[in-house]
């Protein structure tokens, strides 16, 4: 009888210790889960901050900006240059990441008003209203910009700067 009783005690203790370990493991997992959910929120907040700050200054970066060529200098996008950039956007991509590290960049004309947002290509360049540089899903941050390009007046035989009101949208994704 004696050895059986002691064996029972050891078994009880072993089960107790296993239960303690499982308890600690569960507590650890809970802490880790809470920690990682906070991390995702932080990552999304950083993405949002990046998009907000980027959209306010992206128009001034050399791939977009009007330069001294046009009289309007701050927050002015050279539509001709951006159209060329769209055709060469693959050079600004490495793997699944792009030069600006955002999920999408779009430029749309908002004035003069055009209800159909027609994507620009080489055939409709003069009459289009939207350039999608990087097509991607996500939440967008936007900023008003002037969109300028060179036009030719066939009656007066002179070239002039045509500027319209537009918006630049920078998209970012929520951290999964």
């Amino acid at each position, binding site marked *: 009888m004696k050895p059986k009783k002691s064996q029972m005690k050891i078994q009880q203790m072993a089960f107790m*210790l296993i239960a303690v370990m499982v308890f600690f493991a569960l507590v650890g997992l809970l*802490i880790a889960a809470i920690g990682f959910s906070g991390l995702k929120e932080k990552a999304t907040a950083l993405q949002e*901050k990046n998009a907000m700050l980027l959209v306010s200054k992206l128009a001034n970066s050399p791939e977009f900006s009007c330069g001294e060529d046009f009289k309007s200098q701050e927050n002015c996008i050279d539509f001709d240059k951006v159209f060329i950039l769209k055709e060469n956007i693959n050079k600004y991509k490495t793997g699944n990441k792009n030069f600006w590290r955002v999920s999408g960049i779009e430029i749309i004309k908002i004035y003069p008003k055009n209800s159909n947002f027609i994507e620009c290509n080489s055939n409709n360049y003069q009459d289009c209203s939207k350039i999608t540089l990087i097509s991607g899903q996500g939440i967008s941050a936007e900023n008003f910009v002037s969109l300028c390009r060179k036009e030719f007046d066939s009656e007066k035989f002179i070239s002039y700067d045509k500027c319209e009101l537009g918006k630049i949208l920078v998209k970012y994704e929520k951290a999964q």
Partner: protein
Amino acid sequence: MLKKGARAKARYLNKTFRLQKRSTPALTLESFKSNSILSKSKRSQLNISFGWLFAIIVGAVILVLAIYGATKVIKTGQSEEQAVGAKEIGILLNPLEIGFESAISTPLSLRIETRIFNNCYPSGNFGKQGIQTSELSFNRWSTPGVESNFENKYIFSKSPYTEGKKFYIFSKPFEFPFKISDLIYLTSEDEKYCFDGAPENIEDEISQLNQANLVLGCAENLDYTKVCFGSGANCDIAVNYNSNYVQKNQDKIYFEEDALMYAAIFSDKEIYECQVERLMKRTKHLLNLYLKKEILVQKNCKSDLGSDLDLFISILENAKDYKVINEVSELVEEIKIKNKYSSCLW
């Protein structure tokens, strides 16, 4: 029953005593009895049951695992904070894309003493700017956290890191001949520079910056890094403004434009060379854009820049190192003038 047992124990003790007395005649019955009781109590002290032993061992294992887990959690938390910090620094640099304004200085204050690692990678389409941070906790520097990478940023600072609690960041556009990027200069408040004999435009810019660690004149500032323009005694950094090079620790660092001159002053040679190589990569991409733009707008505007842009691209493609900036300086001037008169491309 008890009396019987006690008598048997006494008989056993007497018998054992007699046997012992034969080998040691000096032994008394009292001392023998006390010794035998002591040895028995010692035996009972060591007599730990298996249950206890098992509990102690498993308890110790649980404690070790708990301590290991806690240390891991603390380390993960630390590296998470460092990664977030590095990313935040990178993001905060976005507003420094300043367009056409002149240099602007921004202070960056951190909670604790921090090292900001500036890593530059020249390979790839545009190269990469890496930022890592390490914090001082309990008088020890933590291992640098996860690196944040950016393709569109060019930071010039001391290599491999700059250290402090308060940092100053200022940026300046680099135009070659069109705007390539805004260069970012990162210095700690402990890195102090004094400028001796600087040209008027540089003096104006530094006084406009109003940055506490940059001063004009070195007479009373002995603990400052002395930056001399032209001739000067006891200079730590000598700038030859007319021949476009900076002499620093027996290294000659070549520059074009004031933006790169500041870069050569505030950064180390390795960082400078790598960042200039990256800037030249971006220049090549922008040249391609302008070349195609010239074709697009040729009906509206004649620039006659195509052949020059082509030549510029081919020189950059065959460049051996960053010194290509000196080789193309004349071509850049020519392109700048041509574009100024045509007002077509930038």
